[in-house]
């Protein structure tokens, strides 16, 4: 056993790492209905999930670049807004990511159950 004093757990940076994948799924799920960036931030906040604005917008850009979401500017309101919506390719990706996520959860649940009997 290592007798070194362990570092304090830095949940903040690990959470950022974990959120990176989760945010992809979350955004692709939210965009089943057309939304603009700010409305997504607010919506996530109401669900108790805080997203950094400077993380969300670059992610939207990357998803759009890959063809998983599409965007269009709405200039009819008093303020211009860029709305995003999921594409068929994005739905396929979301299904794949959800499958991965569910599998990870299942593995973790099973290991936790096994550990209870140790």
């Amino acid at each position, binding site marked *: 056993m290592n007798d070194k004093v362990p570092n304090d757990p830095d949940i903040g940076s690990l959470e950022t790492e974990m959120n990176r994948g989760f945010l992809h799924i979350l955004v692709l799920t939210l965009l089943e209905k057309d939304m*603009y*960036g*700010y409305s997504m931030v607010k919506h996530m906040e109401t669900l108790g999930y805080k997203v950094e*604005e*400077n993380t969300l*917008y*670059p992610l939207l*850009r990357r998803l759009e670049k890959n063809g998983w979401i599409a965007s269009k500017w709405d200039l009819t309101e008093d*303020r*211009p807004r860029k709305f995003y919506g999921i594409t068929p390719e994005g739905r396929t990706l979301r299904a794949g990511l959800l499958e991965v996520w569910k599998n990870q959860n299942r593995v973790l649940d099973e290991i936790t159950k096994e550990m209870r009997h140790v």
Partner: protein
Amino acid sequence: MSDKLEAYLEEISHFLSGRAEREEILSEIRSHIMEKAAEGPGEFTDAAIEKAIAAFGPARKVAESYLDESRPIIAPAYKRYLFRYTTLLFAFHTLLTIAAVVFKQDFILFPFLFMPRLGVIEALMYLPTAFLADLGIVAVVLYFITQSGKDVKLPWPKFAVDLDEVKPPTGKLLWSRIFTGIGAVVMLAITDFALYLFAKYQTIIFVNLDWTDPRPLFTPGAGRRISLIIITGFAVSTLTLLIKLFTRSRWVDVVNSVISLGLIGLLLTQPFDNLFAVRIAENMLPKIRFAAKFTLLFIALMTTIELVKNIVVISRRKLAKIS
């Protein structure tokens, strides 16, 4: 429109320069900040915009979050080769520099290197520049390899000393301090004795060990100059050892090497004619001159290698801390 918002967007724009979609990105950030600033109670104020900007983050960080897809300048797998290859290249470069000094010749390795004929002081001044040039060449090569996106397996001889593995001694700190302390005491005694001799005889180099009738090796002027240079060298070594009792910083060694190189340079520039106070056969003089020059250049080479090694280790540690 708020001046603060425009200044913020301008700053992001500066960091995004060259990106085709820059305007689109800025429009979206502007839209977000305006939306957020308008959300609070009361009027749409500058304070609200400032708050929204602060929440969005510093301009450079925002711009970088859009740029993070790009390939690194040098891939992490090749980073260690930056100093590995620079060390090899610089060792070769140093050898050519020494050859240029000793043989008084120009060298051209077309199209890579032109090595002009150099004097000793010029060579010492040239070496740090050569190191930076070598570092730059290796960095450019690794940059192109990284940008090619190919998995190039870079060679590294197994027998070569890997500076990455140069680590500070972990245990036995007490013994290391004891030896450093003994060294410091010995060097202090040597320096004191040299100062005593210099104060009494104006030189520290003699051809006999008879203190009742000492015979200096060099003529008075040359003996004084050379003795002072050597005493300075002793004093610097003593001081280095004393400082190393309290710190293990490699910067101490770097400063010691730089001063030593300067002193060796001074010794090499001393005029050789009318140097000796004792009679020496004419045919021996060129041989003594060559041997003295060769010895000093060899010491200079060893000191330079030590200097580069320490700089590389310091740089690697700094890199490791940054990454």
